[in-house]
């Protein structure tokens, strides 16, 4: 009988009040509750794209109600009939106040205006203003992509990884090296997710450029302390890079022309309000430029990268949404010689978001991740290709139940299949070739995990999050497992037998509980104290004996010899905001241990080694530190942050048999990426006439290196004598970057942005590596290899067609 009422549940007629403000009428079924209150169902959408606003805070002040929108932008509230003011706050949107006139229990939609371009002051924030104090999470850093775009560009590109490295507790290795280190963890201990799919090499050209195109990213979250139970598989941190959606309402395009690379992005509705697509591509043209140089050292080199993203979002209805995302990147590099390096990432995922009710929603996703690298040697004798590959096939089911703003439950299961080809050498036709095809055995593993997490806020002062994740790891055939003499060092000489496992046979199983606990106690509305305990398992290991993440590196799955890395971390933090959350401060302390950390033996042969376990050592790692952070988010022209981290990262490898099985005699030694002091200052200044100046200053301890205790003469060469690994520290690192940006209008109606940036403004020669050498014409002495000896300027111009 009341169908007609439901049919007309949404009446969004607008009229003008006497105060000149629009009033949204909410009508539907008549109220029949005793207390004269009933439910209204609102949806918040981006005014420009029509995309639902996730996690926006909705306040109805006269009813003392506050709630948060779900993954579709929906919220629910119980209110009496009559007019009410709704206040909406969300990341990247203007804080808006709407007036609704409730005449019945119905649905309504409010459109919120994005704030980025209109802001006079610069806002560097990825979350609500008091999130650092009010959230339960310890050690979580969020940056909206708009915030990242405010920072100085590196090589003319918005660089997510370099931006993350400005945060406390995050560090990078050498100058321009790939990857990053979080709270004393190694680069492979970071789970980097792009749209929920793992990425194994996050950089182009060995770290000169980021692999992530900022045009397709909405938010970046780094979990370094309390990691939600839904994430697993790495020992140190999770970097979650979220895709944004294409515009549901109108077509837009964006083109960026830079010095060394350009990009183009197109987005829009294929079916209005139903199907939105976003396609973005980036391509470097260093190859073409290099070829034009007269200097053969440059013209004979090649350096090239490209990437493409395709994102499609389909709204079946208000309760169901499907998203497909594809990412592919390629790199190739050759520096005057016969050997060239190539690597590529390929990711795709499809997910289905479903709302069972305004409280319960689910997400089912299937994804694939492929990382391939290749070394090609084209010499006339013994030419070869060396290929390696990692593939993940992942399925996930996640549920989110929001009972109220005081209780929510997350639960889910996930499955990941990993297929790893550590290396295959394929001889190429050449004048003479005595190489034979060699293939290190492929590795396969299944990882199952289930998790449950409760977020509880029993009072305004206390909230906690309690999560538990259980993982099951199976190392699978087809594979031959080598047996070694018991109680003797692993070496090929001690090989005793080989056991063959058929395809799918379970060789080894590991299981583990991963508790994730965090709690907040609010001392007052602007001060809180938080504590977190965290355990993480990692079953895939980067085996490298080079100075940087490189295509020559080898990945290895846990097997019967190589146990999983298990990291336990405890962290506490004190958070205090001033001036109505405009000044944000925090102090965090952490202590982390890692069992079964992997290092290599001296002179380890890692290439194409089917007995790689004989070249590896495992031990114990620990890291600890103090992180200080002050951020200004005022309405003034100058904003930014200062971050200081003191941290140490040390290892102890103590073998059972002899000194070859130990490192530094079994004593503690600093990890390669150990840098005790790390200071970062980011400033963004709004200049007159739409100019914006941003600077970043980085100061940190020098990198560790291995210093000899003497020199000796052998085989006609003077060589350094090393007795301990990582026993010295190089020169202090410091660097200033700046970026100058100006918005402009072109063709009378389109917006554009001009950017001029300089990386390493005063040309500081920070070493990439430190080594000792006996070169002709000079005494044997220490040297530093410097990649950037001069300032690195870049220019880019962005044209927005919308």
């Amino acid at each position: 009988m009341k169908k007609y009422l439901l049919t007309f549940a949404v009446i969004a007629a607008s009229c003008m009040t006497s105060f000149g403000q629009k009033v949204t009428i909410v009508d539907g079924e008549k109220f029949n509750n005793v207390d004269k209150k009933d439910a209204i169902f609102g949806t918040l959408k981006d005014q420009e794209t029509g995309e639902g606003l996730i996690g926006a805070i909705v306040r109805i002040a006269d009813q003392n109600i506050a709630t948060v929108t779900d993954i579709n932008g929906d919220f629910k509230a119980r209110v009496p009939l009559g007019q009410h003011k709704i206040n909406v706050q969300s990341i990247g949107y203007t804080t808006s106040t709407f007036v609704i006139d409730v005449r019945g229990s119905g649905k309504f939609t409010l459109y919120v205006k994005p704030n980025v371009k209109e802001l006079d002051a610069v806002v560097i924030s990825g979350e609500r203003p008091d999130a650092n104090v009010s959230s339960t999470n310890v050690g979580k850093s969020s940056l909206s992509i708009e915030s990242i775009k405010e920072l100085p560009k590196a090589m003319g590109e918005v660089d997510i990884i370099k931006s993350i490295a400005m945060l406390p507790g995050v560090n990078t290795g050498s100058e321009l090296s790939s990857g990053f280190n979080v709270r004393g963890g190694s680069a492979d201990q970071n789970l980097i997710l792009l749209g929920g799919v793992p990425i194994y090499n996050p950089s182009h050209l060995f770290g000169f450029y980021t692999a992530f195109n900022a045009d397709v990213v909405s938010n970046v979250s780094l979990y370094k302390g309390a990691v939600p139970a839904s994430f697993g598989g790495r020992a140190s941190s999770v970097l979650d890079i979220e895709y944004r959606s294409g515009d549901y309402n109108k077509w837009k395009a964006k083109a960026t022309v830079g010095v060394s690379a350009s990009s183009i992005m197109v987005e829009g509705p294929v079916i209005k309000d139903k199907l939105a697509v976003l396609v973005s591509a980036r391509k470097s043209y260093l190859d073409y430029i290099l070829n034009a140089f007269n200097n053969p050292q440059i013209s004979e080199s090649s350096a090239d990268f490209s990437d493409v993203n395709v994102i499609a979002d389909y709204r079946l209805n208000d309760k169901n949404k499907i998203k497909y995302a594809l990412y592919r990147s390629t790199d190739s590099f050759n520096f005057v010689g016969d050997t060239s390096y190539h690597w590529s990432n390929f990711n795709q995922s499809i997910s289905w978001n479903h709302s069972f009710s305004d409280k319960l929603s689910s997400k089912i996703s299937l994804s694939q991740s492929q990382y391939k690298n290749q070394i090609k040697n084209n010499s006339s004798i013994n030419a070869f290709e060396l290929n390696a590959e990692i593939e993940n096939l992942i399925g996930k089911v996640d549920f989110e139940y929001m009972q109220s703003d005081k209780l929510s439950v997350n639960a889910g299961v996930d499955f990941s299949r990993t297929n790893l080809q550590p290396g295959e050498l394929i001889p190429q036709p050449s004048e003479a070739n005595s190489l034979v095809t060699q293939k290190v055995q492929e590795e396969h593993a299944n990882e199952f995990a289930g998790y449950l997490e409760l977020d509880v806020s029993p009072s305004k002062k206390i909230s906690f999050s309690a999560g538990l994740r259980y993982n099951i790891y199976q190392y699978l055939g087809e594979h031959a497992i080598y047996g070694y003499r018991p109680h003797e060092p692993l070496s090929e000489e001690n090989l005793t037998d080989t056991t063959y496992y058929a395809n799918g046979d379970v060789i080894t199983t590991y299981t583990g509980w991963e508790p994730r606990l965090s709690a907040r106690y609010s001392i007052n509305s602007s001060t809180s104290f938080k504590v977190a305990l965290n355990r993480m398992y990692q079953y895939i290991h980067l085996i490298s004996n080079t100075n940087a993440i490189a295509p020559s590196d080898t990945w290895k799955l846990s097997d019967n010899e190589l146990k999983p890395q298990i990291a336990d971390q405890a962290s506490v933090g004190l958070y205090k905001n001033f001036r109505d959350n405009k000044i944000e401060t925090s102090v965090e302390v952490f202590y982390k241990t890692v069992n079964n950390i992997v290092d290599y033996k001296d002179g380890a042969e890692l290439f194409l080694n089917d007995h790689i376990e004989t070249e590896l050592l495992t031990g114990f790692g620990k890291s600890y530190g103090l992180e200080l952070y002050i951020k200004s988010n005022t309405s003034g022209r100058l904003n930014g942050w200062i971050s200081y981290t003191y941290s140490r990262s040390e290892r102890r490898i103590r073998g059972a048999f002899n000194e070859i099985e130990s490192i530094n005699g079994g004593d503690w030694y600093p990890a390669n990426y150990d840098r005790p002091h790390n200071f970062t200052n980011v400033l963004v200044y709004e200049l007159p006439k739409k100019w914006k100046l941003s600077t970043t200053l980085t100061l940190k301890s020098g990198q560790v290196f291995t210093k000899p205790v003497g020199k000796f003469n052998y085989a006609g060469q003077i060589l350094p004598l090393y007795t301990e690994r990582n026993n010295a520290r190089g020169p202090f690192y410091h660097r200033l970057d700046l970026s100058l940006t100006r918005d402009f209008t072109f063709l009378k109606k389109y917006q554009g942005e001009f950017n001029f940036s300089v990386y390493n403004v005063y040309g500081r020669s920070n070493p990439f590596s430190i080594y000792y050498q006996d070169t002709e014409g000079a005494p044997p002495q220490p040297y530093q290899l410097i990649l950037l000896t001069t300032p690195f300027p870049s220019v880019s111009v962005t044209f927005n067609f919308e």
Partner: protein
Amino acid sequence: MRLRPILLIALASIFNFCSQPLDVDNSEFETVLVVEAHITTEDIEQSIRVTETARYGDIFEGTIKGVIGAKVALRDDLGNNIRFIHTENGFYFGPDNFKAEIGRKYILTIEVDDKSYNSLPEAAIEAVDLDSLYTTFNKYPVVTSTGNVDYQGGTDVYARFRKTSSTASHYMWKYSGTYLIKTYPELYVGGMPPTPMPKSCCADCWQTESGSQLILSSFPRGSDLTDAELFFLPDDGYRFYNKYVLAAKRYSLSQEAYNFYQLLESQISISGDIFDAPPAIIRGNILNIDNIDEPVVGYFTVSDVKADTIEILGVSLPERSGLPVFPDDCLVLPRTTTTQPVYW
């Protein structure tokens, strides 16, 4: 057009890798015994060098000195004791008629002051006969003194050989070469001010050289045949002006000795780039029998030696560098003689 200067600077920056000396405190220093003991089956005077490490730093500060007064000897599995006598600067020489025998095991013993050092037993494994020693012409980029890249032609030398059950799988190589060179003594200019002072001798000389680099070879994994790349002989205008007579020797090594030299080679090749092997702690098979934790550098090896010779005719190269015009007597050049070798 305005972007071009920025672009040029940017690219110059990308490829502006450079190495600079670094000032590092080197006050810490350890004295460690270094033993180069490489005994062979060759009919030569066998020698062992015993030195000590020196401070890493200024060349004048840390001179590597030989250990004098050590008692150096070999003991074989027949119970023979072969004493080595010190001559100068840490070099100890064996008896005139002593050489290693294939299959025989040897132990090196050294006594320095009140310390005794022993090696683990080593035996010579028979060296393999080659299928062929051959060359191919190639050109490689080289960075010139002005920083540009030029292409250097020359010959790569390869050895093809097969694995057998009785011969060694691992080798260290050494080579020497002799070649005829021509100079222009009639163009000699001397005195002050420089005045043409033609010399009547000598225009034709034979120059010799020997490779100093550490050259190792083994078999590719899974293969019983190898085309081992040994070394590159750059065409400097002299080497292939007429012909180059190459003698390549191979020294058989045990697996452990090969591993030691491979580690040594990886340390020699460190240049600071992104693919460098990290610094490694080099030890060997020599121990202080009273304190096995004392570091001793060096690997006592016993090798069988075989040699092969080939002639590389200059005319066989697809292209050759021009003969440099050296306006002087060819005998002023190093390692030259006007005496024609008997095999020429």
